[in-house]
């Protein structure tokens, strides 16, 4: 499924229409910010200011397209690769990086942003989304969820179980699989020999969609449709967004060991930002002025991140103890006192 080809030309589709101009512009704006954020975070990682950063360079359309399809009250369940999605969803960019900075496991209150903590154990948060939307329905709230997962993650048993629970319970969850062709060094054809990953939906009695993941309009359109169906009781769906991870897996990866630079070039030519920009310009939806504003917005986000990251947060070792349980149990309280004592002696 594609609505905008790689040259920025519209494509007709029998069942999907592109979002309206305002949304197209918003998609582009979010991608511009996301791209800049990816660059900034990668730089911070290179500088050692982040312990690690898994860049989603090249995948901005998939993330932005998916997230902007969510309604106000919906939840996002991101993985480690989905900073751009989170920033688009409204999470404070600096808090998005808390995990990677090594300050804490998660930098924000999930309820505040309707965004679960970034998930590292692959596919394990998919069932959380099923449970959360189930609970919301029980409480009479119209909450859907978008789960972001990679091509590699679909091989895990947890993906299977979550898909099935969602289908059987008919919870409003869309599983957006960003097939970026690689799971670290393992190509997707070693994960699955199914025609597409979207075909997995069949085995759960779900709908499955395959979409050009570098076409933000198409991703938005398909995910919006899937969410609407899901909240109307039509069941969950798997949306496979075909895209590509342009950067290394993380800053400490060595992609030359496992993939050809030609492949990267091939995909760079299919850049999600370029094509939407072409369309927006051609159709005079945006002009240089507006694009300049997007760039400045992006730069502002990057600068704020850079500035705020320049300040080392003071981390209190005592925070190791305070939230393990609802109340600190006596034996742990003793370890807390001992550590405080140790630190006094230093």
């Amino acid at each position: 499924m594609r609505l905008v080809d790689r040259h920025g030309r519209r494509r007709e589709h029998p069942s999907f229409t592109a979002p309206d101009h305002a949304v197209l512009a918003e998609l582009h704006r979010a991608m511009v910010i996301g791209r800049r954020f990816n660059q900034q975070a990668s730089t911070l990682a290179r500088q050692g200011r982040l312990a690690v950063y898994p860049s989603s360079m090249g995948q901005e359309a998939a993330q932005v397209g998916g997230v902007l399809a969510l309604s106000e009250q919906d939840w996002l369940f991101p993985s480690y690769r989905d900073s751009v999605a989170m920033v688009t969803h409204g999470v404070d960019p600096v808090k998005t990086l808390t995990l990677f900075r090594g300050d804490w496991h998660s930098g924000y209150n999930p309820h505040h942003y309707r965004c679960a903590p970034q998930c590292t154990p692959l596919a394990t948060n998919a069932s959380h989304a099923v449970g959360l939307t189930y609970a919301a329905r029980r409480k009479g709230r119209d909450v859907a969820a978008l789960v972001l997962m990679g091509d590699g993650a679909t091989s895990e048993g947890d993906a299977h179980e979550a898909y099935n629970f969602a289908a059987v319970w008919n919870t409003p969850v869309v599983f957006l699989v960003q097939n970026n062709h690689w799971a670290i060094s393992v190509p997707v054809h070693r994960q699955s020999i199914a025609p597409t990953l979207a075909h997995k939906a069949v085995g759960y009695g779900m709908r499955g969609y395959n979409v050009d993941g570098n076409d933000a309009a198409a991703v938005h359109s398909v995910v919006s449709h899937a969410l609407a169906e899901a909240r109307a009781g039509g069941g969950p769906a798997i949306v496979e967004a075909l895209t590509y991870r342009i950067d290394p897996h993380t800053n400490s990866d060595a992609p030359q060991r496992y993939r050809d630079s030609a492949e990267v070039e091939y995909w760079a030519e299919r850049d999600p930002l370029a094509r939407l920009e072409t369309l927006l310009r051609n159709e005079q939806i945006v002009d240089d002025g507006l694009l300049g504003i997007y760039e400045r917005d992006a730069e502002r986000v990057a600068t704020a991140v850079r500035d705020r990251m320049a300040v080392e947060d003071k981390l209190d070792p005592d925070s190791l103890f305070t939230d393990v349980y609802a109340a600190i149990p006596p034996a742990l309280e003793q370890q807390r006192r001992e550590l405080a004592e140790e630190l006094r002696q230093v």
Partner: protein
Amino acid sequence: MAHTPPTPPTGTETAATASGAAASAAAAQGAAEVTMGAALNRALHDAVAEDPDVLVYGEDVGPLGGVFRVTDGLTSTFGEERCFDSPLAESGIVGTAIGMAMYGLRPVVEMQFDAFAYPAFEQVVSHLAKMRNRTRGAVPLPVVIRVPYGGGIGGVEHHSDSSEAYYTHTPGLRVVTPGTPADAYSMLREAIACDDPVVFLEPKRRYWSRQSVDLPVRTEPMERSVVRRPGSDVTLIAYGPMVETALEAAEQAAAEGRDVEVVDLRQLAPFDDATVAASVRRTGRAVVVHEASVFGGYGAEVAARLTEQCFHYLEAPVLRVGGLDVPYPPPKLEEHHLPGVDRILAAMDRLQWESEWVEGHG
């Protein structure tokens, strides 16, 4: 030789009734004999009735009422919404419970037998135990995982594991196990009301143990260990299925003139040092008993920390009595694996009552 369990053993499940809908009714008319299964069943009924956020699900917990009937009558009384059967996938069950708890429900899920909780291990260790801490307290997870555990019912392979050591070594979890019907009721209510995730280990061979008690009942808070039987010569530390066995052993020892104090740990993690250490300081001797294999078992923690805390009060090393360091045996051999009264008495006999042999010390 052939072991006769309290009910037909459950090879691949569906054992006989451990509770029965009658329990609630019976208990309503004053101190009745209540089985542990019935007490648990009543606790679930009362919790579901009182709090609309509590729901019960898992494998066969609905119309069947669970293979041990602990969830008997919940679906018919409260409807599908409050107690239902899910797809057969333990990781999915715990994962969805986590998601539900994130949104304010208090799910109580059942793992049908101990070994069938292992598929959910990653969800338990990497999420359930860590979510509150990960989110600096913003996302507590009030989830109860009920696990019928331990042996002694003639179950075939995978139906008799004692998995407490896996959970107690995982910070962020509360691990509790009742030893009496009254505690079963009270602790399960407390577990469901608790804002921490609780692994609730049900000693399945004791589902049929009876006690005369008025339900509802509130016993000591679950995080407190209790002295089940006072004594002055030696402290016998037990929990779950071994509480009854320990009390029997104490009776028998009394007949032989030895005054045994029995401590029931109840909450295995986090640990209540005060109660048991006070006892050991008083008696100077201790034996800890559990069904699980001794090596790396929970008893090691009890022995190690008691020794740290009471070293100069100890007349002898804290001894451990437990299962052999072998995979859980088939039904006809489990009696040799499980610690019984004799093994406990033998261990107590080894506690160097004649202290002639003290070379090398002081």
